[in-house]
């Protein structure tokens, strides 16, 4: 039986293509009205999972539940889920009206109902006046909205979005993301969203599942995944540019004392278990604080929440509103630091000596298993 309040459930789903394992024991539940994002690189299995829900791919093992019904054996045409493709996949030989009404025609609704429903959904995506146009006469963003209207019209049990903004240019994409999210919340439609773009995942999601190599790497609220990745992969994929090997000296309850280098110790909060040989300290470039003068080497002293080490600016990338510095530490490791340009005093030049300060609260620790690489 499915759990209470879950609209979509994957239970122990495996998928093999020949001997290639595309999905390994994936279990994911999506609550009613929730937007869950599958985030991962290409080939991580996220699209396969979406296609399993749509019914185009059969799982080798495991169950798929949809609104309290086990749908493993329900053919795709009978699942009543709305799939939006990356390339929109509008029927080029049909008008917008015929595209949007296609699913309603398949349900043999009467003409008046179809007319009314198409009008409603076209109003919802603000394209009512384009009902008689052909898809090729519309812009990419408009086509995507029509694709959305087409699936919403059938009042699907779930909305499936397969990289829907991949083909839209940057500026429009930001708009569309917000618009789709608002629409999804307004309709309260349970949604499975697939993307490889972490920014997009953060904007769109109630919850994110990060996938890698056919497995679930981490699952959680957008910001908690952003702040506290639990594996090197998730950290890297969510833009934690700095990954340093460290030595764990001791644990103090929910905190650990780690040594970055000789004389530089830092107290870092622990999110979960920490087992394994190699421990990595991860933090974002924007959490590294740079100060003008060299500090003259790590000062020995009791470990605290802050640590300062000297460094040399090796490379500078100007991004306009901010600048990214690559800084070499005394032990040879390279750090990425990002500075907002609001403080002009903090602009440095190549080769400049400076002090790098890290706050333990901004860092996460995780153990690396050999297989995680």
């Amino acid at each position: 039986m499915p759990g209470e309040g879950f609209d979509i459930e994957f239970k122990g789903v495996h998928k093999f293509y020949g001997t290639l394992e595309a999905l390994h024991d994936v279990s994911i539940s999506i609550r009613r009205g929730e937007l869950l994002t599958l985030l991962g690189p290409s080939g991580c299995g996220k699209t396969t999972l979406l296609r399993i829900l749509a019914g185009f791919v059969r799982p080798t093992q495991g169950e798929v539940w949809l609104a309290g019904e086990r749908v493993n054996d329900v053919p795709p045409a009978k699942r009543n889920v709305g799939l939006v493709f990356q390339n929109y996949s509008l029927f080029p030989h049909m008008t917008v009206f015929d595209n949007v009404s296609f699913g309603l025609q398949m349900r043999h609704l009467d003409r008046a109902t179809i007319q009314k429903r198409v009008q409603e959904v076209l109003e919802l995506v603000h394209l009512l006046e384009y009902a008689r146009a052909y898809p090729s006469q519309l812009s990419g963003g408009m086509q995507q909205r029509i694709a959305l209207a087409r699936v919403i019209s059938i009042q699907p049990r779930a909305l499936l979005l397969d990289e829907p903004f991949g083909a839209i240019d940057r500026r429009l994409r930001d708009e569309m993301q917000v618009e789709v999210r608002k629409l999804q919340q307004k309709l309260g439609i349970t949604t499975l969203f697939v993307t490889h773009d972490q920014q997009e995942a953060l904007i769109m999601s109630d919850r994110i599942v990060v996938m890698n190599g056919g497995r679930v790497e981490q699952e959680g609220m957008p910001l908690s995944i952003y702040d506290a990745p639990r594996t090197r992969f998730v950290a890297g994929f969510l833009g934690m540019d700095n990954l340093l090997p460290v030595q764990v000296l001791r644990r103090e309850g929910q905190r650990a004392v780690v040594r970055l280098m000789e004389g530089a110790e830092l107290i870092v909060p622990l999110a979960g278990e920490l087992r394994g040989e190699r421990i990595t300290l991860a933090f974002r470039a924007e959490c590294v604080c740079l100060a003008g003068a060299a500090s003259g080497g790590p000062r020995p002293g009791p470990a605290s929440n802050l640590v300062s080490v000297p460094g040399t600016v090796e490379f500078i990338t100007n991004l306009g509103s901010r600048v990214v510095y690559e800084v070499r530490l005394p032990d040879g490791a390279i750090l990425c630091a990002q500075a907002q340009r609001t403080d002009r005093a903090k602009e440095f030049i190549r080769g400049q000596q400076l002090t790098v300060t890290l706050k333990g609260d901004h860092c996460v620790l995780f153990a690396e298993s050999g297989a995680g690489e």
Partner: protein
Amino acid sequence: MKTARQARLTADFQTIPTRSLVLILMPTLAIIALFLASYGSFILMSFREMLPGTTTVTGNWSLASYRRFFRDAVYPYFLFQTLYRAVQVTLLGLLLAYPLAYFVARSSSKLLRQLVMTAMIIPLLVGGITIVYSWLVLLGNAGLLNAGLKALGIIKQPIRFLFSWKGVIICLVYFVIPYAAFSLIGPIRNVPRTLEEAAVNMGASKLTVFLRVVLPLTLPGIVEAASLTYSLALSAFLFPMMLGGGKVKMMSNIIYETIYVTFDFPFAGTMATILLVVSIAVVVVMTLLQRTARRVRSD
């Protein structure tokens, strides 16, 4: 929108001088010109006068051959038969070629795809005589097909395939299938598979997906395949001659007999010209149809 780079690339292509483009066409143009000249002389021949009761062509111009063609009901009848049978062959050929083309365009198995392609290429490789011989073996009263049908209890008496239209049509259909299929593969492949999936996702059955999405989108390709098939069937000569056994004839056979049996070159030219005009008319109509189909799609 064109990027600057794309615009530059296009410009580079456009700078190939027309002079050099014409140069590479020269050999082909020469051959085409020679052929057209000889064809033209054949057409001119149709307007020549024949001395009655002889095989001598006089130097006078005359429409006698054309009058003869339309006066004698048997020739328009042969023309009609030829057109009608070509329509039959085209329809049957398309019906059988489409699934083949769809399979090749969509199958995920490379091995099966190549097997089907090879099977399609074989009739093109072996040539007409081999095809005819194979079908003679298959279609005889005691042939494989009749034996099979009898064994299955479908028929009691053998069907007379040979020396009738049935055999000729079967063989012609077999002959045109590869041409039709090969020209359909591209258009089918050009229909994104996600369009079919989108239709299924909207609740369409397989048949509906085909009728509402794949078929309309491949219509230009179908018209193209049809005009190719129709032209091939219209000019059929070997199959009706060999499998028709003199009982069924298409225009090409009549023209052949007129040349080699009665030596009436003006009349042969007349029939060839009429057949040519009809063929061109069909191709023109098909092309117009195709344009319409494309316009509907890209509007």
